[in-house]
Structure formats: C-alpha cells, structure tokens
C-alpha cells in the first residue's frame, strides 16, 4: 500500500467543534495571561522586539491575541520534509499521514538472549538501514544514543551514519548549537551548497519545551538556528498528565496546546515563515503507583485530539503514537501500538512519531520491533486508504458472469484488483495449521528476526563513494562503525 491520499481524513474526532473552541480559547488565555517562562535575557529581549509581551520580573513571555494570530498566520501550512532521492518526500499539510520511528533511546533489546545492552553508533546505522527498507516507516529519526561517541563530534557522526544508511528524510534532536551547526555543515556539503540545502532541506530538528510552560535557552538557541537556516523544526511539548500537566485529559490538552502554539509563534518571531511543526507528545502517569505510562489508551486519545487542535490552525503536526511500557515485542506491545497508531492516524496526524521500534516507555528499541511495527503501520495505511467504490469495484458484471454457485478465483476481475485491494503482511501467520507446523511453528517475532537479518545483510550504503570520500576528507571527526 502507498501512503494514503487521505481525501476523507479525519475519521476519528475525539473532540467536537465546541470542545475544540473551548480548549483553544483556554490555551490562548494561558498565553495571554500566564505566559511562557524563558530564563534568558537575550531571548526575552528578542521576544520583546518581536512584539510579544515580556515581563522581565518573572522572565515570562506572553502573547496578545493579535500577536499570536499574526505569528500563527506567518507559519507555513504546507511544506516538505525532503528525502534525498525525492522518492520519499513527506508532504506536510496535505491530508496525508506519515509514520516515523522514535528517537534517542539508551538501550536495545537482544531478542535472542532477552537482555538489554547500551546502544552504539552502529545501532544508529542499523536502524536507519531498517527504516530505509521498511515501506511504512516514511522517514528516519535518530533512534538512539551512540554511547561510543565523545560529545565533540557527536551529531556530525549520528547524522552522517543515518545519511549513509538511508536516503529518506532524517530528523533528530541536537544537544547544542555546535551540534546542529555540524549537521548543517555536513548536509550543506552533501547538498552542493547552503542555498541548495535551504531549498530542499533533507534533515530536520526536534526540540522540546519543558512542561509546564517553560523553554530553556539552549532549546531556543537550537530552534533559532533552524529558523534562520531554513531547517524544518518542531518545539514539541511532552506534558505528563498528573505530573507536569493536569490530570484531566482536557486540562493536559489545554496546557499542551498553549505550549505548542508558543513554539510555533516563537519560531515565527525568530524568522517569519519558519517551517515549524506544531508538536505534541502527550502521556500520563499511572496514578496508582506514579509509574510513567506512554502506552495508555488515554495517550492515544489525547494525541488524536492534539491533531484536531493543530488543524484548528491548519498547522502540520508532529504527533505521537505507537509506544508501550512492554519490555519485549509481545501481546501488550502489539495491542497498545496498534491502538494509538491507528487512532492518531485516523485523526489525520501529518507525521506520527514514536510509531515504530520502541519498547519500555521510550527507553529502549528492538530491531525486531521496527519490522513488526512496519507491518502494523502498513495495516493502518490500508485502513486509511478506505474502501474504493466505483462501477468497476462494485463488480456487477463479474457477479453476473460468475452467477449463483460459481467462484471468482480465475476471473480477470480478481487478477486486475488483487494487487491494490489488499494489504499483504510479511510477518503475520496465514497458513493452514499443518503447514504452520511443517514450517517450525513460526510467529511474528521469529519471522521479524529473520527479516531483520535479511535487511541488514542486503543493505548497501546510500552515499555515493565519490561524495563520501569528499565528506570524509572534509570532516575528519567522522568515525567508522
């Protein structure tokens, strides 16, 4: 299945229009009367010059209705997260749903031993290689911490190895201004110049405010760099219901909406027209124990509602789904991931991140889970594509031809439509019982293990050798994996 055209999105709307207006009104009130805390004189001045209301005594920035609306009007409704080969461009704001993996975990599951280990640069390269091959993971987010790297050339290396393993768009967090500058320099060389990179940016950057209602100066440094260099970015709030956000879903949505709109508005003050995604990463605490829960069903509902809130302003959204507390690829992982991926996709989230590869509340990845989630996402895309009803698909003439008591197996009509009507899973069990036994009783996980091996074995570097040698001589800080 191809990425859906999404003509009839959204199917799922947890909020009705009156709810949306209530939440939006309350969020705007927050921005006008409470504001966002920024502990940095330089940025407070910048916001002041940009027409926001700055209270230096409390280090807060507030937005009048007019200033907010002006900023939001400047934010692009549509833009593209480019792939390097042009085959997997992410067209935001066009009622399409794209999925991507989750980033920056610190450990990986070894399915064979059942143990977890710290992640390395090789895991960045391998997960990028998986995403490159997996059709339903539409772009790549730097998946894990490379614990074998020193901070000095950190982002030069994690982005380089991602670029080398996939030609899909690459997104990632950057720890510092120096880090994002390194990626920019690398990408500019790859693009053939800064202007070329600005025209077709093939990487983008994730930043986060700190809920409730605070943004660090380091975050603003990085966001500011992106805005002034034409790099698409998001400043995605990650409030936790019952801890850093109210325990009510509506309250958490209200606070998150204020934070997300502030991120978009601040980006426009940095540079009007900045390509910024409204960001939302809503989760909750299990209040029985105060355990952090990403895979809750409320998470799925809130993140779907967040799509509606972003669409209230026609803004493309960096939404979240596909997470679980489960520590291995199991029944819980499969059901929680399916629920949230489906619900946020049915709400029409432009890009749904965390959708693949993660386990253990976003602390861990498993290669096998990438492959399994890819299959879940393929099914979700199939659902979004809907049921095609035309004269041809109604099939009246072939029904008449076959007549009562016949069958359709060898009909032209069957052969004409078999490829585009169905999603064909690679991992799900579909054989008869005896065949299944003959095959050694495979299951989704055992098939995923084999598929991971195949993909990684067949993988070839994406960077052209000549370009690669230019990169390597220009950036001696790059390490091999």
């Amino acid at each position: 299945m191809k990425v859906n055209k999404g003509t009839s999105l959204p199917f799922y709307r947890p909020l009705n229009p009156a709810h949306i207006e209530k939440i939006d009104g309350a969020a705007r009130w927050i921005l006008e009367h409470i504001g966002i805390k920024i502990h940095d004189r330089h940025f407070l001045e910048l916001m002041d010059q940009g027409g926001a209301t700055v209270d230096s005594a409390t280090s807060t920035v507030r937005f009048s209705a007019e200033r907010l609306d002006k900023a939001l009007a400047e934010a692009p409704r549509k833009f593209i997260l480019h792939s390097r080969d042009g085959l997997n461009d992410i067209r935001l704001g066009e009622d399409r749903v794209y999925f991507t993996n989750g980033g920056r975990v610190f450990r990986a599951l070894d399915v064979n031993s059942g143990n977890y280990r710290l992640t390395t640069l090789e895991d960045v390269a391998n997960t990028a290689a998986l995403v490159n091959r997996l059709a339903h993971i539409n772009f790549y987010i730097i998946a894990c911490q490379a614990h074998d790297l020193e901070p000095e050339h950190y982002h030069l290396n994690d982005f380089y190895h991602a670029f080398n393993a996939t030609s899909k768009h690459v997104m990632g967090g950057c720890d510092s201004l120096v880090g994002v500058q390194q990626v920019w320099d690398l990408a500019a060389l790859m693009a053939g110049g800064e202007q070329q990179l600005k025209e077709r940016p093939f990487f983008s950057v994730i930043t986060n405010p700190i809920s409730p209602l605070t943004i660090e100066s380091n975050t603003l440094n990085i966001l500011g760099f992106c805005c002034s260099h034409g790099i698409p970015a998001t400043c995605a709030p990650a409030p936790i219901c019952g801890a850093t956000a109210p325990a009510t879903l509506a309250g958490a949505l209200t606070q998150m909406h204020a934070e997300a709109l502030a991120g978009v508005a601040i980006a426009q003050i940095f540079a009007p027209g900045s390509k910024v995604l409204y960001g939302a990463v809503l989760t909750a605490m299990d209040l029985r124990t105060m355990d952090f829960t990403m895979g809750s069903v409320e998470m799925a509902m809130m993140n779907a509602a967040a799509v509606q809130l972003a669409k209230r302003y026609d803004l493309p959204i960096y939404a979240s789904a596909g997470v679980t507390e489960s520590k291995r690829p199991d029944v819980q992982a499969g059901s929680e991931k399916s629920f949230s991926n489906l619900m946020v996709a049915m709400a029409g989230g432009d890009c749904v991140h965390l959708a693949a590869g993660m386990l253990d509340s976003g602390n861990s990845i498993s290669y096998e889970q990438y492959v399994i989630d890819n299959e879940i996402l393929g099914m979700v895309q199939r659902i979004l594509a809907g049921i095609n009803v035309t004269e041809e698909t109604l099939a009246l003439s072939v029904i008449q031809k076959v007549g009562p008591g016949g069958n359709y197996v060898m009909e032209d009509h069957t052969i004409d439509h078999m490829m585009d009507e169905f999603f064909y899973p690679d991992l799900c069990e579909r054989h008869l019982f005896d065949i299944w036994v003959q095959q050694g009783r495979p299951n989704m996980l055992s098939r995923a293990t084999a598929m991971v091996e195949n993909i990684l074995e067949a993988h070839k570097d994406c960077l052209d050798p000549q370009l690669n040698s230019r990169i390597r001589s220009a950036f001696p800080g790059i390490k091999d994996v």
Partner: protein
Amino acid sequence: MAEFNALTESVIKGDIKSAVAETQKALETGQDIQSIIDDGLIRAMDDVGERFSKGQIFVPQMLRSAKTMQECMKLIQPHFKEGDVKAKGKVVIGTVKGDLHDIGKNLVSMMLEGAGFTIIDLGVDVNPEAFVEKVKETEADIMGMSALLSTTMPAMRHTIDALKEAGIRDQVKVMIGGAPVTDDFAREIKADAYAPDAGSAVIQTKKLLGLS
C-alpha cells in the same frame, strides 16, 4: 486512649485545613502531645499506608495525607520538650549536571518528605561543587542524585569525586537513581545505595540511616 477521629479522618482525606484546625483544637484543650501524634496522626498514616498497599488509594492521595501530617507536626513541634523527638534525617537532592529531568527526582523528594525526612532540593543541572557546598552547609545525612540521561550518569561519579576532594565523602551517604541508572553502576561508582523508584528510595534511605 484519647479519641481523635476528626483529626484522623482529615489526615486520611488529606484535608490540610481541617486537620490543622483539629490539631490546634487538641493542643488548646490540653491533650497529651504524644497521644495526638500516636492516636491521631500516626494512626491515620497507618491507615493510609494500608489502604495504599491494598490499592484503595493512589499515590497523590498518599502524598497529600503525608503533607497534611507534616503541616500538623509543624504546629505540634514548638510544644516538644528538648530530646522528645529527633529529626529523621536530612537529604540533599538534585538532578546532576547537564540534566534537566526532574519529575522522578521530585517524586522521590515528595515521598521522602512524606516519610518524615527533611529535603533540601537543589533543582536540576546541579554541578558537583553545588552538591558539595550544600552537603557541607546543611550537614546532610544523605545526598541523592538523579540522572535520566545515560550521558549525564558520569556526572554522578564526578560529584562523588568532588565529595572526596572536599574530604566529606565519609560524612554523607550517597543514593542514586533515574531510569538509565542501575545497581551495578551504583556499585561501580561506589555510591551507597541505588533505588529504582520513589517507594524503594524511602526504604533505602531508612536502611542507610539505620532506621529499619
């Protein structure tokens, strides 16, 4: 045994206002201090603990009850005679340098406070010198460090080194935690304890101070 049903009820409910009023009333009517504590406050907290372990109440309620008890204790304290009760222990806590995650650290603080410890919270991105200074200044019994990033875990080691350099490593017990932190890591950097969650942090703290 004196009856403090209204007080007990208010502490169980976490109703600070009425619990404080009930405590005030008990003090004014000359009730025995030890009895207010034992038959009023502690009886309430025993009940809260039992309800929590049965899953009848949740963490926010338990923390509210603990907070309510503390507020009552503040009223009672001035009435203590010298040596009546000794403070349970002082904990200096913070998230280590380079790390801004504080939700887990705050939960640990709330639980410890609820269990009767005095908390000095240094916040986030705390450099080793700031930890050392605060430990010295407050003569803390425990120093708690939180790290949520695998990349800031080395700062825990540096902070312990700084304690050594300041010559106060043996005067304070070090407890560490945070999602990427492990028991092995605690042993490796010679911390005195590791706890995987806030509940176990209380147990570890009591152990370290010989209270259980």
